[in-house]
């Protein structure tokens, strides 16, 4: 369905390119809304060529920035927006900037967490200049909403599924199941409730959601919890409205308008991956739009509007029925990346490799040398970064299909079988232990009789099997010095420390006492005699009786015997 719609787009673009903004003000149901978005997008792409040099320049600037802008910190935003002020522009046209990024984090549960963020910044003021009519990157539909309803801040999220914090940890941007909407209005708004009512209806149209069911029965004005996330020290919570619709079901019809808000739509850049048939085949799906005003530079003299579109989803690997733990962009999204959004100043792909610093759990292909560190949720995490704005990222095949391949658990097994009475068995295994798990290594053996001289004086005590050894590098909470020549207390310097982040541990298991079959040594003589007698008498005679047949022979001695008897008689010995 979505694919079909996509292919229709190119036709629609041509057909509707002239009927520009007449339709844009009308909020209608899904199909029309689609067209509307297409038109909007078309207008932007038309403008794109004119601004090409400026885009080029900004892209170069932006690559210098190594910030993982996943946390909403004002400082970060200032840092990123600082270079933009350098851009020379004689015309006082509003400057805008678009960034996109995708964070992929392998979760402990074995699932994959993918988080898209698209940020559009625009140095304009919807309030002061009453008529903002020239939109480039910022979606016009939202711009008009902001100016019409005097919105200071708007947060809307659509979520399908519940975030399993116990298994997945914290998400980058949390959201409740269903739809959530909270808005701060400007002080200038006189009738907040009426504006709120109208706004929800308008948003309902934009996002094709049942937001129009928001009314006074499910609207609240939290006084403490929902402070504005952007600048502005508003404390009067009478301008805040908050509502949730837990029943709201999120599906393709919500995704399509959401995608259309992006400057490149779903034609280029990371948004190419947002195929609904794959996205809605996941354990968790959440899409959100956040609008707020942020500082333009560190002095915060002027403000700019920020539009953040986020999409989080968790893919269930076990559900997909594959036995090998392997993940690629294509397997998840049924698309690969071929280019960055040309309008984006920065387009990056982050892979969380904090749990995999040396690549012992999984490996990435193609590999990247670019690393980035960021503090997320109170934890310093390391990411591999793929910069989509650089041609080299896509390699010779002109497409990036990132592959995460987990290494199988038994990495290395070394086994030397024993030789009887020469050398013992040796079994060495390199094992990756999952957290909070019990791993059992069992060895089957057969009890054998030893040679009788090999028994020790106390055979019934049992035979010892020495301790097994577990050697491991354990992650350390404290950074350690790797310099072995440095002066340290003796007790802390025995095991050489190769890395700062981990220390060496060796664990010995209990020795084992094994009972072998032991003969009764108190009467070996008796046993030997008895056995020999039984074998000789019992077996011998039985064998004789069974195999030999006895016949009575006439006493007719042969010639040799007669001669022998003659000799014997002469010797005085009884004859044969």
């Amino acid at each position, binding site marked *: 369905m979505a694919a079909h719609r996509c292919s229709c787009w190119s036709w629609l673009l041509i057909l509707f390119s002239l009927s520009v903004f007449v339709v844009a003000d009308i909020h209608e149901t899904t199909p029309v809304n689609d067209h509307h978005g297409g038109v909007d997008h078309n207008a932007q792409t038309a403008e794109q060529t004119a601004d090409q040099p400026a885009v080029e320049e900004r892209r170069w600037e932006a690559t210098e920035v190594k910030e993982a802008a996943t946390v909403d910190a004002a400082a970060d935003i200032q840092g990123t927006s600082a270079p933009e002020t350098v851009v020379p522009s004689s015309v006082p046209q509003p400057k805008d900037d678009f960034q996109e990024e995708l964070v992929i984090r392998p979760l402990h549960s074995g699932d994959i967490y993918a988080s898209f963020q698209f940020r559009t910044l625009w140095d304009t003021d919807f309030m002061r200049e009453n008529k903002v009519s020239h939109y480039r990157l910022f979606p016009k539909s939202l711009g008009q909403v902001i100016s019409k309803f005097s919105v200071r801040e708007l947060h809307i999220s659509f979520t399908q599924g519940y975030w399993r914090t116990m298994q997945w940890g914290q998400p980058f941007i949390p959201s409740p199941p269903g739809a959530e909407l909270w808005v701060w209005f400007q002080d200038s708004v006189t009738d907040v409730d009426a504006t709120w009512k109208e706004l929800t209806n308008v948003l309902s149209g934009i996002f094709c959601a049942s937001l129009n069911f928001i009314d006074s029965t499910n609207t609240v004005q939290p006084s403490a919890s929902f402070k504005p996330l952007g600048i502005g020290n508003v404390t009067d919570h009478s301008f805040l409205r908050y509502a949730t619709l837990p029943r709201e079901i999120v599906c393709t019809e919500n995704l399509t308008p959401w995608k259309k808000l992006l400057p490149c739509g779903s034609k280029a850049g990371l948004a190419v991956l947002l195929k609904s048939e794959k996205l809605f085949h996941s354990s968790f799906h959440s899409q959100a739009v956040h609008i707020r005003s942020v500082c333009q530079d560190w002095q915060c003299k002027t403000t700019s509007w920020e539009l953040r579109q986020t999409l989080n989803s968790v893919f269930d690997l076990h559900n997909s029925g594959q036995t090998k733990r392997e993940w690629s962009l294509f397997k998840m999204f049924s698309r690969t990346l071929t280019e960055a959004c040309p309008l984006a100043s920065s387009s990056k792909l982050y892979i969380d490799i904090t749990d995999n610093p040396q690549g012992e759990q999984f490996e990435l292909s193609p590999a990247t040398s670019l690393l980035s560190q960021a503090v997320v949720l109170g934890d310093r995490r390391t990411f591999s970064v793929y910069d989509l704005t650089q041609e080299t990222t896509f390699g010779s095949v002109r497409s990036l299909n990132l592959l995460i391949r987990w290494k199988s658990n038994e990495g290395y097994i070394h086994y030397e079988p024993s030789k009887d009475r020469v050398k013992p068995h040796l079994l060495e295994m390199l094992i990756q232990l999952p957290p909070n798990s019990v791993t059992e290594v069992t060895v089957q053996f057969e009890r054998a009789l030893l040679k009788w001289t090999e028994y020790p004086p106390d055979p019934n*005590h049992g035979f010892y099997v020495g301790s097994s050894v577990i050697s491991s590098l354990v992650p350390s909470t404290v950074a350690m010095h790797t310099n072995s020549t440095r002066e340290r207390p003796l007790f802390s310097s025995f095991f050489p420390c190769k890395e700062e982040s981990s220390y060496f541990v060796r664990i010995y298991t209990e020795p*084992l006492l094994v009972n072998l079959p032991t003969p009764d040594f108190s009467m070996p003589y008796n046993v030997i005699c008895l056995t020999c007698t039984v074998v000789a*008498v019992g077996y011998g005679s039985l064998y004789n009786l069974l195999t030999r047949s006895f016949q*009575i022979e006439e006493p007719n001695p042969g010639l040799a015997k007669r001669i022998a008897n003659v000799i014997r008689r002469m010797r005085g010995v009884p004859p044969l």
Partner: protein
Amino acid sequence: MGLLSDPNRRRALISMLTRLNAPICVVCYFAGVAWFMGLAFEPFTLRTYMSENAMGSTMVEERFPAGERALATGREFAAHKKKVGGMPVDWLVKNMQDRGLEVFTQSFSRTLPFPDENKERYIVKGTNVYGILRAPRAPRTEALVLSAPCSPGDGNNQAVGLLLGLAQYFRNQIYWAKDIIFLVNEHDLIGMQAWLEGYHHTNTTGMSWSPLQGRGGSIQAALSLELSSDVITSLDLVLEGLNGQLPNLDLANLFYAFCQKIGVLCTIQGKLQRNDWDSVSGYNHAVQTMMLMVMKQASGRPWGDHGLFLRYHIEAATIKGVNSFRQYKTDATTIGRLLEGMYRKLNNLLERLHQSYFFYLMPSLSHFVSIGYYMPAFGLLAVILLLRALDLWVQLNTPPSTTEDGVADIDQQSSPGVLSVLTPLVISHLTGVALYALPIRFQETAVEHFPVSETEAVVLTAIAIYTAGLALPHNTHRLLSGEGTEQGWRVLKLVAVLYLAVLLGCTALINFSLGFILALTLVPLAAFVTPHVPKVLSAFILVILSPACTLLFSVFFFQELQDMPVSFQDGWLLYLSVISQGILDHSLYGSLVYPLIALLVYPCWLLFWNILFWK
């Protein structure tokens, strides 16, 4: 050799054996029985003595002081048990932890093949709690176990109290060289089975249990404690374990030595020993004690919680406190001291107990009969079978020499002979398989169609199949091989007699008592049965001597020996419950008596039944 190789002497010997076959057999039979009865006569038996040097010469002092406090703990345990309505796991864990043990729990569950009416259980779920006292400076290679079952109702609270008291006292001593595991097991043997399987990482009976988190090395010895009153008059030692296995005799010696030292009355099979061996009543007493042991061993079931340890080659015994109406009373402190002494001596062991006998019978606690003394009794019975086999063999070979054309007859008869032997063999064994497999399988069908409980259904189905087996096989060979011949039944009897000889011989090596009791009844019938004896009378004797009737008589005899005679009605009910217990023991713990009887002994008996009705 020379005797057998020389054809003349051989012929003479054989003719003597065939001529005097019947008298020799009779003499052997009575000699065997007499030998067996003589075993209980004290001058013929050996006094017990401690073989293990590590336990013999070392002196230990017993200083356990806290009997009263242990009893108080037992009362507290009883209160918590009543409150929880089962095993007070949390209370036990906390108490063991307070005493400085490493405490672990194991949960298990088991669905019985059919409801156990004696113990009133069907779906069993429970938890074992055990605390390990880690020996200082020992590498966790060896361990001793002291266990007390947490039985439903008021039973055995004092044992748990004493166990905890001993744990507390042991914890403060420094001389331990082996870890000591204090185990409180729920649902007696089922819990013990779960714990042992968990400890040894085996699963032989398809039970589900959670793996053990703490281990203490290979277990050297184990004692199970059963006390149900604050003061006791005597301590009873139970040795018989699964499949008639017995612990090393040194364990019994150790118990006896400490009873003597501390001055506690001790019994075996609930019988005190008497000194008047030369009087008739004294001899009677010894015979009763020994016969009780033989009966218990032959049953193949564990007679205490220790019984399952023996399967893992762990020497174990159960010590039962008995409170009868005697003047002489022993308090908990004394029992604690006795156990302390035993554990200190076991702690001194350098090797596991192996010096003394594993196969023995005990006419009293101070005397024993070793395998070398009792085996001839069985041998005399078994030799009858061999003599009869020899006789048959000779009879099978001689007739052809009487007539010249007999040679051709043999050729004609030998080929159907194989078939006529094989058919009854196969059919009787199939009946045995049915007897083994069907009762449990068909319990649901039986319950649907008859107004009986599941347990009754199993037992009655077993009896029905057993009885049906009598009617089924003895005519079938004629359909296949036509008229039976003289040769035919002789060959069949030869096979059956040899089969029985091998079967009883193997059984007696593993479980002497079972082998002997079976030989006592099966050997005479195997010796006399031919198609030519009076049918009705012989059939009656054959039924009387069949395994099922042997079991019935054993039940009455056992009650008689325990001085608890029962009426026929009660005895019959007891008999039914014994059968159900036997089947349960097989499926729960892997006891081998039921499959042995059903799959081997009963088909063998059917062969003789077949011979009787040979036509």
